[in-house]
């Protein structure tokens, strides 16, 4: 497929490349990352460009790889009045996202108790197949969680009021409609609140390495002040509840598209007009799942505070265990952007792409308004993660979006053939990283060599100015499903 360089690290696929493309496709990548992208990215990003109501361009972030319907790393905005909404542009794990907590603890304080800490976190935060959470909810209470998200948790003592300001959308997105959620989704997800899941989901104890503060001033605004400082990062989403809503509506849209005269190039791009009854029903259910994911990460953060208070014998506030930020990377949200000089209401789909609002964005807490929104990009369990900040350029260029992770380069089976889970855990322990996992084979699947180089992804988004490098975080303890 013809890929034309149009700016540094920006590649465009013109509409002439595929019949039905309404806008060009734009891939944001260094030459090295572009070469690593599989053929599915090019096919899928151009398929998305054919969907009704899309504006400007179909975008793919530097960590892009093939997904279902949209590529992972896909960003696309559709007119709210005439465009569509597609579960394939959000993913089954609705509001999968990242939360980062900072602490006043140092590596020197944590090292002697690291194994005890990781074991205690593993016991307190259930993970893996068949895990049950610690909160028992009636149907009515679960509906409250769908509407209120993280606010419900704080209202019930599972968190601090200031956690909400440090969460995208205040941890509660408008438009959730529990009446559009199936009984099966409720049955599947109600007991999973406060669980981590499996695959690439994790809870990690991290440290700021000696050379880890790239922008000390912004890092300080985010609560990271010095090398050796301990942070806690978690990556998870809406669990079986969101997965079932994704399944329910993929199945629904697959059948109703014909009625709206929509044809798609890939069945995973099943969609409906945003303003149609089906489109609005999915948006209401999807937002309920997004809020539930905020609640899930809030409950896990609460457990982290309880465990760390117990292990270190200090109140969580005395440990400085505050939320830096909680940000989604699998959502569709209604936002306003100028299109051809006219401000338009758009349904912005981000699938494996992080919101990256720049300074001054109204959704940001007061403390971050001058610097921009924290952006959390998760890497592999061996290599570490990154904290960045959103930019004004992202608002103009990518609908306020940036990358979300490193992206796999190797299949799970291939990774397992290269290393045993037990062997990898031993090797990581020798390098000072304590791992506790529900599935040992799952550890092997998540080996660092199975992922792209996160530094290249971070360098590229920094170079593109769609987010700027603030800090690097290196894992020392990891809990996995």
């Amino acid at each position, binding site marked *: 497929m013809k890929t034309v360089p149009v700016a540094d690290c920006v590649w465009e696929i013109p509409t002439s490349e595929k019949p039905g493309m309404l806008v060009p496709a734009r891939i944001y990548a260094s030459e090295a990352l572009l070469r690593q992208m599989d053929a599915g990215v090019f096919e899928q990003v151009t398929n998305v460009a054919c969907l009704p109501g899309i504006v400007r361009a179909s975008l793919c972030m530097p960590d892009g790889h093939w997904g279902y319907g949209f590529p992972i790393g896909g960003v696309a905005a559709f007119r709210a009045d005439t465009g569509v909404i597609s579960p394939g542009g959000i993913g089954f794990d609705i509001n999968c996202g990242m939360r980062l907590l900072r602490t006043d603890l140092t590596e020197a304080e944590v090292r002697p108790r690291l194994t005890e800490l990781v074991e205690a976190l593993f016991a307190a935060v259930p993970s893996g197949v*068949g895990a049950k959470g610690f909160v028992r909810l009636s149907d009515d209470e679960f509906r409250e969680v769908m509407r209120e998200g993280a606010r419900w948790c704080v209202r019930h003592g599972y968190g601090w009021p200031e956690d909400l300001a440090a969460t995208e959308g205040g941890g509660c997105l408008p438009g959730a409609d529990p009446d559009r959620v199936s009984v099966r989704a409720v049955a599947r997800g109600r007991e999973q609140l406060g669980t981590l899941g499996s695959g690439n989901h994790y809870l990690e104890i991290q440290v700021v390495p000696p050379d880890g503060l790239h922008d000390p001033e912004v890092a300080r605004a985010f609560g990271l002040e010095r090398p050796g400082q301990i942070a806690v990062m978690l990556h998870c989403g809406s669990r*079986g509840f969101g997965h079932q809503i994704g399944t329910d509506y993929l199945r629904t849209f697959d059948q109703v598209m014909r009625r709206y005269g929509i044809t798609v190039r890939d069945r995973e791009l099943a969609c409906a007009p945003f303003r149609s009854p089906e489109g609005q029903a999915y948006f209401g259910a999807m937002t309920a799942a997004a809020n539930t994911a905020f609640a899930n990460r809030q409950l896990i953060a609460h457990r982290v505070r309880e465990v760390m208070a117990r292990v270190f014998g200090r109140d969580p506030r005395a440990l400085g265990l505050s939320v830096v930020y909680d940000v989604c990377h699998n959502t569709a949200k209604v936002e306003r952007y100028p299109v051809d000089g006219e401000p338009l209401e758009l349904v912005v789909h981000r699938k494996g792409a992080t919101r990256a609002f720049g300074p001054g964005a109204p959704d940001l807490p007061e403390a971050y308004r001058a610097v921009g929104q924290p952006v959390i990009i998760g890497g592999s369990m061996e290599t570490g993660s990154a904290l960045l900040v959103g930019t004004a350029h992202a608002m103009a260029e990518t609908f306020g979006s940036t990358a979300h992770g490193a992206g796999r380069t190797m299949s799970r089976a291939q990774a397992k053939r290269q290393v045993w889970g037990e062997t990898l855990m031993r090797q990581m322990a020798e390098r000072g990283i304590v791992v506790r996992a*529900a*599935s040992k084979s799952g550890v092997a699947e998540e080996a660092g060599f199975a992922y792209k180089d996160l530094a290249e992804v971070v360098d590229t988004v920094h170079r593109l100015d769609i987010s700027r490098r603030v800090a690097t975080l290196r894992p020392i303890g990891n809990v996995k499903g």
Partner: protein
Amino acid sequence: MGRHTFLESVAVADCAMEVEGDDLDDLFATAARALAEVMVDPATVPRGVERRVELAAPSLDLLLFDWLSELIYMKDAERLVFPEAEVHVDRADPCRLVARLAGGVIDRATTALRADPKAVTFHQFVLEPHGGGWRARLVIDV
């Protein structure tokens, strides 16, 4: 007797498989066993639970989609995994299946856990006659 093969090049981040069966009953049962194998080591699942499942769908491929989605649903809603399945598929309109499942509740102390499937996808989703039997290609999001 049906067979399944995991396809590494199709779903780098997830789990793709090709399933073959002598007939539709065999294919649906083989796909169910393969899915159980994705989730856990089947030998470590406690036995003792039997379930009867009945489903209907407007087409055969959607019946397969719904069948596997049902098994993923039971894994989360009831923590049930079924390494054994007998399935009877009726190609009438709408298509129907009746299945008898045998397995048990995941015991986190003794069951060897593997991946936690989120959903069946339509990615490269195919169900077709093949060599006198049937063949399906399935990609599971894990």
